[in-house]
């Protein structure tokens, strides 16, 4: 259980994509989700699909990992697609029954929405699979820096994020240990109705929270003993390096955007 969670769903590797600066990856994911709304015909979707598949190829991670990412959302996706198909009017009607109309436009729309879902999931899965959560917090901190002007305590927030990530595996372990201890005392988890299940969780939650507060107390003491006195005047050990590879990636996105603008209706 632990291994999975230390990395999130990160799959170690050293492909071109793995090596990209996390800022570049984070930005590109955001850009991709933005420009996907530019696509409105099959040429543009095809272009996006090619782009995404190339990126996946470059990551050397098996396609099945990405397809797995779709599974949990499949019902939501299908439902949305069906609604799109049923309620989009159009000129070429195949079927008409009161408010329910199946038209050529509707079908096409359904297919496009489906593609949009798949593409978004693929690209965000790519981010998760190729980037360690820790480097992501580095990137988030960097991208938050401008907020310092409006008095947001960016250093402190960054520190919180990295401490949070550092403690996730520890707390997972602790959760598992407490669950085991309570199971040994006769608690059944995952049985009964929602209220019974909530009740079964109380003996995990309370110890977990109490111990977290104790941890916080001890950790804060340890940090102050090590000279932590606030964000000011601190230097940074970790540094991100933006190299030509990252610029190339951003250029690719610029080209993709241009391509979409040219091809869209």
């Amino acid at each position, binding site marked *: 259980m632990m291994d999975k*969670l230390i990395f*999130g*769903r990160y799959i170690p590797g050293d492909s071109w994509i793995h090596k990209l600066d996390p800022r570049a990856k984070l930005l590109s994911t955001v850009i991709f*989700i933005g420009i996907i709304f530019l696509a409105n015909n099959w040429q543009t979707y095809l272009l996006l699909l090619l782009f995404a598949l190339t990126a996946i190829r470059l990551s050397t991670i098996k396609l099945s990992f990405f397809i797995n990412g779709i599974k949990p959302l499949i019902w*939501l996706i299908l*439902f*949305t697609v069906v*609604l*799109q198909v049923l*309620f989009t009017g159009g000129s070429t009607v195949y079927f008409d029954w009161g408010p329910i109309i199946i038209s050529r436009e509707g079908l096409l729309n359904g297919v496009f*929405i489906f593609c949009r879902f798949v593409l*978004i*999931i693929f690209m*965000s*899965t790519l*981010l*998760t*699979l190729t980037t360690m*959560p820790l480097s*992501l*917090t580095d990137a988030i901190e960097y991208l938050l820096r401008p907020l310092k002007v409006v008095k947001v*305590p960016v250093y*402190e*927030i960054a*520190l*919180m*994020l990295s*401490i*949070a*990530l550092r*403690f*996730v595996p*520890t*707390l*997972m372990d602790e*959760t*598992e240990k407490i669950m085991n201890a309570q199971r040994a005392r006769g608690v059944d988890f*995952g049985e009964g109705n*929602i209220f019974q*299940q*909530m009740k079964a*969780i*109380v003996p*995990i*939650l*309370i110890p977990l*929270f*109490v111990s*977290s*507060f*104790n*941890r*916080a*107390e001890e*950790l*804060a003491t340890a*940090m*102050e003993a090590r000279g*932590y006195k*606030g964000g000011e005047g601190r230097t940074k050990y970790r540094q991100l390096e933006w190299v030509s590879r990252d610029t190339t990636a951003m250029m690719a996105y610029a080209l993709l955007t241009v391509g979409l603008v040219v091809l869209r209706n």
Partner: protein
Amino acid sequence: MQKISTKKIVTIALFMAMTIVMTIVIRIPTFRGYINLGDMVLLFAALFLGKKAGFLVGGLGSALADIIVGYAFYAPITFVVKGLQGYICGWIFQKTGYHKPLLATIPAGLFMAFGYFVAESFMYGLAGAAISIPGNLLQGIVGALGAVLLEKSVGTKIKY
């Protein structure tokens, strides 16, 4: 910039970690898949540490959880919606004199369901967004109740 005490930084960080853990580990199966207890943690944080902490734990903790489990595309929405959920909870609790936690957590939970609805309507259209309302509402309510229970039972067991 007002200085944040080390203890507060660490406590918020641990709450963020808890949000992630509760989102990932504890899943209560319901009719529409799962509900997780991330909301409960962020609402508890808002009650206990105030609105700003509620915003940080809700926004950053939950967004990080989204990224870790592979729904990075949800992270920006989550950041805003859950961040505000925490903030609203903390704000109401403060305005109402720290007496009635349910008065703060329930509206925050309702806001969350509404927030996701608005955000998702851009992605999936109105109908697609509407289908996640019941699930989100349930999760919001469970979170709201859970947070209040926690505040009652954990609050007496720690010195903060």
